């Protein structure tokens, strides 16, 4: 017990508090668009983009950029727009194109890291960028502020475009047919996804991002039945899981990313149970 309290006392230190704040914000952002991604059958785009982000990161390291994030952001946004365009023009080949881009970026990223990295612990570096930091997140002040600023931008954009995102997600054809600027909103969604993925890469690593996007939405959809309640529920779900996950990882000395995803899985199972139980009762 004392040990646990000792560990939690870490939170006195700014680096631990920063990790908690940033982690919760990222979890919040990624859950919001999760609903749209799952419903539009776009989950795989998040996955593909996260690999692109990984590739971009290694390129940044090789070039010797000290602050990698803006570069990764631009590259990922660019890929997001590209993938979305592809998906619209050639429907059948969209899947394959994404698989190609994502696996390609992953392989090249690993290759670059091995060939050019001056670090003595290449596999450790690769591992932490794929699965997130092993210990608690240590973020530079710039990274913290950049993460907070981007999260706020994502939140504001989401709130302002909430109704449009609903229309485009529920029925894109209807929206286009009745004269809404669907293409613009799709583009916006793609850019926001890219931002979220770059943000989340710090927290859970690029292989686990999809979990952060998909689990909250899928859990909320088991229980709630309107778009608004699903969105709110998945936001609360995601924030709670991230908060608990980070605390557990501090106390139990486990990697942050996989601990958060672990709590997400437990949360999902609970919602699954609640969902089947309530369905039985009403049926």
């Amino acid at each position: 017990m004392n040990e646990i309290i000792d560990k939690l006392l870490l939170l006195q230190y700014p680096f631990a508090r920063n990790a908690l704040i940033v982690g919760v914000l990222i979890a919040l952002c990624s859950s919001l668009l999760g609903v749209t991604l799952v419903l539009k059958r776009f989950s795989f785009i998040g996955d593909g983009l996260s690999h692109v982000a990984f590739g971009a990161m290694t390129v940044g390291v090789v070039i010797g950029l000290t602050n990698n994030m803006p570069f990764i952001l631009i590259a990922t946004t660019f890929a997001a727009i590209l993938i979305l365009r592809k998906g619209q023009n050639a429907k059948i080949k969209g899947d394959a194109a994404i698989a190609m881009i994502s696996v390609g970026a992953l392989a090249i990223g690993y290759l670059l890291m091995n060939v050019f990295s001056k670090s003595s612990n290449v596999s450790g570096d690769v591992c932490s960028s794929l699965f997130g930091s092993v210990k608690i997140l240590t973020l530079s002040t710039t990274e913290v502020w950049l993460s907070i600023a981007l999260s706020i931008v994502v939140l504001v954009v989401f709130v302002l475009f909430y109704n449009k995102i609903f229309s485009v997600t529920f029925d894109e054809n209807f929206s286009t047919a009745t004269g809404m600027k669907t293409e613009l909103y799709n583009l916006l969604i793609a850019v926001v996804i890219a931002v979220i993925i770059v943000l989340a890469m710090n927290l859970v690593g690029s292989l686990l991002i999809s979990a952060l996007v998909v689990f909250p939405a899928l859990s909320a959809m088991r229980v709630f039945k309107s778009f608004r309640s699903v969105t709110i529920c998945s936001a609360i779900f995601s924030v709670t899981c991230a908060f608990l996950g980070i605390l557990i990882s501090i106390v139990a000395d486990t990697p942050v990313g996989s601990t958060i995803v672990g709590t997400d899985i437990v949360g999902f199972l609970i919602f699954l149970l609640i969902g089947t139980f309530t369905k039985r009762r009403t049926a």
Partner: protein
Amino acid sequence: MALLTCRNLALGYDGHEIVHGLSFEVNAGDYLCVVGENGSGKSTLMKTILGLLPPIAGEIRTGDGLLRNEIGYLPQQTEVQKDFPASVWEIVLSGCGNRMGFRPFYNKEDKERAQRNIERMGIRKLVNRCYRELSGGQQQRVLLARALCATSKILLLDEPVAGLDPVVTAEMYDLIEELNKKDGITVIMISHDIAAAIKYANRILHVAGHVFFGTKEEYIESDIASGFLKGGEDK
């Protein structure tokens, strides 16, 4: 000037042509029924009129000051809607999306409009229900209420009665007729129900190898109808 004029239209996907030589006009207040066999290109025609697909050849002109965002559309059901968590209210209200421009939230007028169309479709009791748990007929009413939020001029309906029982089908036809006669909304409807087409519509467009367009009286007299009509009666 007609509300909608199509001249020598050729339709298809990715340059692959399905029908050609479609010419017809729709005037304000018309009730046009589009008939034809499965796969003849009726839905494709509707998507082309709506700007979801580019025409392969020919032109579509809108007149009488009909704007892009004054069109209402009832689609054949898409897959994504089947497990979508959305309440009836959210869906009907989303029909007002085309009058928002860049305004982020629905205003009082939008909400009143949605409320009015919910009353008009007789689905007030369902407002807070989840769309995917409604019956087919109830779902069609919800989508029709949404389409009515998007327009007060012209409605394009793609098989609005598919899968509905005879009683609900009749109700649906009455609703649509009322919208056409009482509210003066122009209707373009795809239907396999040739008897209803002849009963309610004043214009018929038959999409096939040989395209027919004319009033329903002309249609009944025509050769193309006779085979199709008999087929309908046999059932």
